[in-house]
């Protein structure tokens, strides 16, 4: 593990109060983006990193996925399912995540 990541993760979890519903709502939603964008928005590659994205850039992208002005392969199907308030909360959330190198697990190979 890189030392930087360890520290980053620590900051990420210490900075967030635990057990508060309002925070949980956006935190869990944001975490569900990780399947494509990596843990805390730190994609290992192929998709854009969301960690540290500028708030207004984020909101603009999500709005243009919704109205189709930015063509997308899959993001329109996610952006259209969110409320405007959730998009703003997600923008705030990702803007404060530290931008780190994504960690890909190494396949064991063989067979």
């Amino acid at each position, binding site marked *: 593990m890189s030392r930087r990541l360890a520290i980053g*993760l620590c900051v990420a979890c210490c900075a967030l109060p*635990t057990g508060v519903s309002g925070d949980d*709502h956006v935190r*869990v*939603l944001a975490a569900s983006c990780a*399947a494509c964008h990596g843990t805390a928005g730190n994609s290992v*590659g*192929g998709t854009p990193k969301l960690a540290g994205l500028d708030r207004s850039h984020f909101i603009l992208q999500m709005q243009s996925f919704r109205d189709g002005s930015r063509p997308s392969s899959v993001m329109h*199907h996610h952006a259209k399912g969110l409320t405007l308030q959730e998009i703003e909360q997600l923008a705030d959330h990702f803007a404060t995540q530290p931008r780190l190198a994504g960690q890909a697990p*190494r396949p064991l190979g063989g067979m």
Partner: protein
Amino acid sequence: MQRRTFLKLLGTGVVLGAFPKASWSGVPVQGRVIVVGGGYAGATAAKYLRLWGGSRLEIVLIEKGTTFVSCPLSNLVLGGSRRIGELTFNYAGLDRYDIKRLHDEIQAVDADKRQLVLSDGDRLGYDRLILAPGIDFVYDGLPMLASAEAQAIVPHAWKAGPQTVALRQQLEAMPDGGTFVISIPKAPYRCPPGPYERVSQVAFYLKGAKPKSKIIVLDANPEIVSKKGLFTRAWAELYPGMVEYRPNSQAMEVDVARKIVKTEFERVRADVLNVIPPQRAGRIAQTAGLANIDKRWCEVDFLSYESRVVSGIHVIGDAVSSALPKSAHMATSQAKVCAAAVVALLAGNAPDPQPVFANTCYSFVTDRLAMHIAHVYRYDTAKKIMLPAEGGGVSERPTEQEGQYAYWWAQNIWSDTLT
């Protein structure tokens, strides 16, 4: 915890120095959470419990295997564009989260005492238990397929691993002009588009290597369960004349030695036969009495994934009874809602009353072309279930770009689950 168990935990080699920090130093831990099952759901729950619960939780992950083999992408092993070793990982990436890892198969849950019974009879207490047992196969209707010997001839290959490789070897050994027959159980089963992706992958291989061959799809469902239009078109355009699809064709009986499947209407002979049996929540959910829906699936509270039958036990992933697709992404999203709720509950707080999360399933129809189905799911306070939000849907057509994104989806979800 008994001394032997403690030693076993140490024996995993992960705990050195990290072991019960809090309990050793006398700082009271907020609680011990045990996660049973190290698939997408369980591994994710263990990691996010640490990320969100901080250092005051003691987290134990119990998984019988020492390797993680990804079901997503495993159909590509049948198509020949991936090797199973590329989809196989260990759990070392989770060690940094101070998760005590125990490779063992638990015997039972003693819910009254809040204890697990390990394979050697040792007991391990918990404050909250999260079960992520995945699926087991139901052989009541097809008892002839229950044995390992039968499965060597007619594999299910519906848990990625040796059977995936065996099925690939059977396809390699099949003569050109042979027939591949696949039997699909009634929904719900793990990975709704998976069987149809498998048909596409086998067709991809046969088109290149054995173009005179045929594929017969015996589907117990009245129609293709997921991405129907996309798969129908992909088969017609990419593999014309190769795939015969037969709806309402449940396997009633299998002649294992001769590879013949009997449905209500016909007997179908195969050169390579793949029967995906009906499924239910994994064994431990059954023995712990949690599978209250059709004796197959576990009913949960979608705010916390706590069982509706036994308190203190949460169930996540494919074992959950719901209209939600049993996908890897869904398993990780449920794990995160559950982890956040368990952290909240142990701190005396209420879970988020309206969870929302995203889900996507990609399917490959060749080695490079893929397509998706994607929805945001939102808790419905009246119905008390997760429902797909407006605005989701499927790709217009499979593309190479989505093939790339599907590959990166896998890389990112592996990273999120295992590191």
